[in-house]
């Protein structure tokens, strides 16, 4: 019992093929339908159900429609303040991005372990968040170059830069620009992974403390449990904040592409 209670906090991030799909391949690349893919599917499904439920198109909205409309209104407002009128056309993308990340984060935090189902937080994998950040960055590049052609490079030389400083500033700005997709993807991945590791470590304290006898349980297990409750609340906040930050930064970058400086 004591030997089995050793908890590996990283095990929750392990990717496993499901339904014997381990050998599925496209052009020689493995595309196994993993637990990660399953939770992407669940997030998509949940999102379709959620937004679909608010699609009654009533003039006087019910609660569900009100909830969906508050989200679309929130995204619309965010684009309007950060990008301006030109941001209206990005509402579908930013909404999908924000809601997909939000649902993924929340689904990963659901206490489904009680029912024997272990939720998988695919936003804790940079291979998943990287796709989203590269997607956002690509849109910024495509829009920027399509709209401003080579003039888009003026983004890297802010107004009022002395001529002598321009080359150095250009390099610095270029690097900071190119770092964006990495910072965008890594921020989400790190925040989600850190929270889940922390919860797992604390829960291992509760379990090993309980196994080691009542005194250790009272000294280490109980405080850890209380702390876990608090950190769970914090993690809920982080779920929302990280989705918001991802969407907000994408908006800010889109503003650069749409309006330069």
């Amino acid at each position, binding site marked *: 019992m004591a030997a089995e209670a050793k908890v590996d906090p*990283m*095990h929750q*991030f*392990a*990717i496993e093929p499901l339904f014997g799909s381990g050998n599925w391949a*496209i052009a020689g*690349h*493995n*595309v*196994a*339908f*993993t637990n*990660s*893919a399953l939770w*992407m*599917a669940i*997030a*998509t499904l949940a*999102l*379709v159900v959620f*937004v*679909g439920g*608010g*699609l009654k*198109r*009533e*003039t006087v*909205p019910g609660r569900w*429609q009100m909830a*969906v*409309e508050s989200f*679309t*209104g929130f995204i*619309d407002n965010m684009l309007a303040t950060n990008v301006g009128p030109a941001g209206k056309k990005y*509402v*579908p*993308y930013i*909404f*999908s991005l924000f*809601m*997909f990340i939000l649902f993924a984060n929340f689904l990963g935090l659901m206490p489904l372990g009680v029912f024997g189902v272990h939720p998988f937080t*695919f936003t*804790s*994998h*940079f*291979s*998943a968040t*990287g*796709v*989203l950040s590269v*997607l956002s960055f690509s849109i910024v590049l495509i829009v920027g170059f399509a709209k401003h052609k080579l003039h888009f490079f003026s983004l890297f030389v802010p107004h009022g830069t002395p001529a002598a400083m321009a080359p150095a500033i250009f390099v610095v700005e270029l690097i900071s620009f190119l770092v964006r997709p990495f910072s965008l993807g890594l921020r989400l*991945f790190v925040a989600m*992974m850190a929270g889940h590791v922390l919860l797992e470590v604390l829960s291992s304290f509760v379990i090993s403390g309980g196994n080691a006898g009542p005194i250790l349980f009272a000294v280490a297990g109980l405080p850890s449990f209380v702390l876990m409750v608090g950190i769970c609340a914090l993690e809920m906040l982080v779920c929302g904040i990280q989705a918001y930050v991802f969407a907000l930064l994408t908006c800010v970058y889109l503003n650069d592409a749409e309006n330069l400086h």
Partner: protein
Amino acid sequence: MPQISQLADTYFSQIFWMLVFFGLTFFIVGRGMVPKVMATMADRNKRIGDDLGAAEAARAAAEAEEAAWLETEAKQRASAHELIAAAKHQAAQATHDSLAIATARIDADVSAAEARIAEARAAALGEIELVAADAAQEIALRVAGLTISADDARGAVKGTFVHG
């Protein structure tokens, strides 16, 4: 750390399924549903705006109506005042006229009556003279045995009457 240790085996699957499901989310939810939700909100906002505009217009119309009504009322009040003043003036005039007529009639009556009184008095005085003259003739005849003519008696009496 599975994110790194499993990366070589799983990166393609992760990227593939991420693109598949995020793509589905984007096309079904983002492109399919969100514009409808936004259109509903826009419709509602437009309707609210239209209703507010209509209410504003109705209020303006009501205010204009009220102003017009107040003006009409003021006019009617003024004309009513005029009518009353005219009627009062007319009534005063009529009263004055009928008073004048009545006064004239009363004056005529009074002067007629006075004339009659004066006449009656004069007649009465004449009668008294005659009676007094007769009486004086009689007295003179009885007392002094004098026969006085009616004219003398009358003249004597008249003188007394005249001197009072």
